[in-house]
């Protein structure tokens, strides 16, 4: 597997790269790089409404990505966006504005990524909507009692499937069925879950699901919003421009009836072709056994870190992701990350775009090591060894 990822050959400051920043973005296998290369080298053209061969190939390539996503996630509609963030903003604008009104409530959680908070704060301000934040408890889970209570009169529930800080997997089945029973729509932020598990969108029962290609072996600049047919019909256009219209005159315009309605302008063509190659590549992965393997690494690492005196923020239950957030009692996180980088270890520090969660945990940031398919137990062991050396020398 590792030899399929050319970047893993990279030396950092003379040392082997140990890339543990996968929750921020993952590396790309050669097949993904090659697919985009091939597109630019052989088939580059603008898509839709064109007759010539290259345009046909580009159109087929672009739409094939949508088809793959539809099949893989069992979704009626797949809108291609520039990422999770745009997907969530699209829900706020295209669905929220048309279906919410002053006084309506939207339920969020304290575990959300900023991308699933700020769009709602902006909408709330504009439309006078009430936002309700479900608290995170000491055990790092959502307070389901408060969640249930907060559903009263709620029109929409926005919840992160797997926390990018804690790796905690939320009980989405329960969240969705409770929400549905109260008539609230559900938006699932799957940025951290789609890379790690097969999700049957239709069976799950959510109304929207957002995720990014770059966190699942695909290119930057592309993501998707899955939508059910019913809710799709409730959405009004968001951005205007080419490709999303049926007719335009100076008296007004009519719009496409399919996903193109929400894909204004020249789309992310090379990106879609790259992502499609990544999706194909991922189909060879045994998600279940990989999940188990990575989770075991995460559990082992957490234990080691704790025994070194670190505080670990995570519980690593069976469905949680292999994300290990921790803090040293005295050493500054960024100093630590700099020192780790000197030996080739890439970890992330800071608030991980989840300040409300950190505020609840009464910290301002963590050091985060996050694992993906190409990471090994040996890397985790090397990480622990390096960390001990650094602490001995610097702490």
């Amino acid at each position: 597997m590792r030899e399929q990822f050319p970047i893993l050959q990279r030396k950092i400051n003379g040392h082997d790269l140990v890339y543990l920043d996968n929750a921020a973005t993952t590396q790309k296998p050669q097949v993904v790089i090659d697919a985009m290369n091939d597109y630019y080298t052989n088939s580059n053209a603008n898509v839709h409404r064109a007759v010539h061969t290259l345009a046909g190939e580009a159109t087929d390539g672009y739409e094939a990505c949508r088809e793959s996503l539809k099949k893989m996630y069992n979704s009626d509609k797949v809108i291609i966006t520039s990422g999770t963030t745009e997907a969530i903003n699209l829900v706020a604008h295209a669905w929220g504005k048309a279906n919410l009104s002053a006084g309506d409530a939207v339920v969020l959680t304290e575990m959300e990524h900023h991308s699933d908070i700020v769009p709602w704060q902006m909408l709330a301000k504009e439309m006078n909507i009430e936002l309700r934040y479900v608290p995170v408890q000491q055990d790092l889970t959502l307070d389901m009692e408060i969640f249930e209570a907060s559903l009263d009169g709620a029109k929409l529930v926005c919840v992160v499937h797997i926390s990018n800080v804690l790796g905690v997997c939320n009980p989405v089945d329960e969240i969705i069925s409770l929400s549905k029973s109260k008539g609230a729509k559900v938006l699932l932020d799957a940025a951290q879950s789609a890379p790690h598990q097969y999700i049957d969108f239709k069976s799950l029962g959510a109304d929207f699901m957002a995720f990014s290609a770059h966190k699942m072996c695909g290119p930057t600049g592309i993501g998707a919003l899955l939508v059910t047919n019913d809710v799709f019909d409730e959405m009004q256009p968001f951005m205007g421009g080419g490709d999303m219209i049926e007719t335009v005159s100076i008296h007004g315009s009519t719009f496409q009836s399919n996903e193109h309605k929400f894909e204004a302008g020249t789309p992310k063509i090379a990106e879609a072709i790259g992502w499609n190659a990544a999706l194909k590549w991922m189909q060879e992965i045994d998600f279940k056994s990989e999940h188990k393997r990575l989770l075991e690494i995460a559990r082992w690492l957490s234990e080691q870190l704790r025994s070194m005196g670190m505080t670990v923020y995570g519980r690593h239950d069976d469905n949680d992701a292999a994300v290990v957030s921790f803090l040293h009692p005295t050493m500054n996180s960024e100093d630590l990350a700099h020192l780790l980088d000197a030996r080739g270890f890439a970890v992330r520090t800071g608030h991980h775009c989840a300040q409300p969660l950190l505020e609840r945990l009464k910290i301002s940031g963590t050091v985060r090591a996050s694992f993906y398919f190409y990471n090994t137990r040996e890397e985790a062991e090397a990480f622990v060894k390096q960390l001990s050396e650094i602490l001995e020398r610097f702490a």
Partner: protein
Amino acid sequence: MSDLTLEDLIEEFQEVDDKMERLEMVFELSEEVNFLDVEHWNDSTRVRGCQSEAHVIVTIEQEKIIFKAGADSKLVQGLMGILTIALRDITPTQALELTPEFASDMGVLNSLSPSRSNGFRNMFDKVMMEIEQKM
């Protein structure tokens, strides 16, 4: 109107490699169409999702399918000609067993842009739906 059968057509197409020649064959097949005059074009005859204007009317008389069609593109009219041949001498029941795959098999669809070949599929679907309704 020739007495070409669908089998003849498929064979003929498969013999030709040059795309221009294939397109020429499609052009010529526009002659096969029972032409629907422009004055009969309206919203109910329109094939949706076609880039050009394409219109079809289907009626059934004594177990025979009467297919009339017209388009502002000769290529589209050629596709209509292919469908005309496919529907010739078969019963409505037999027609409903057709799939648009025969056109892919002929290699005619991949000589066309994705939007044109989508257009063909849309036309095919509309015609089948009308046959079903009028049976």
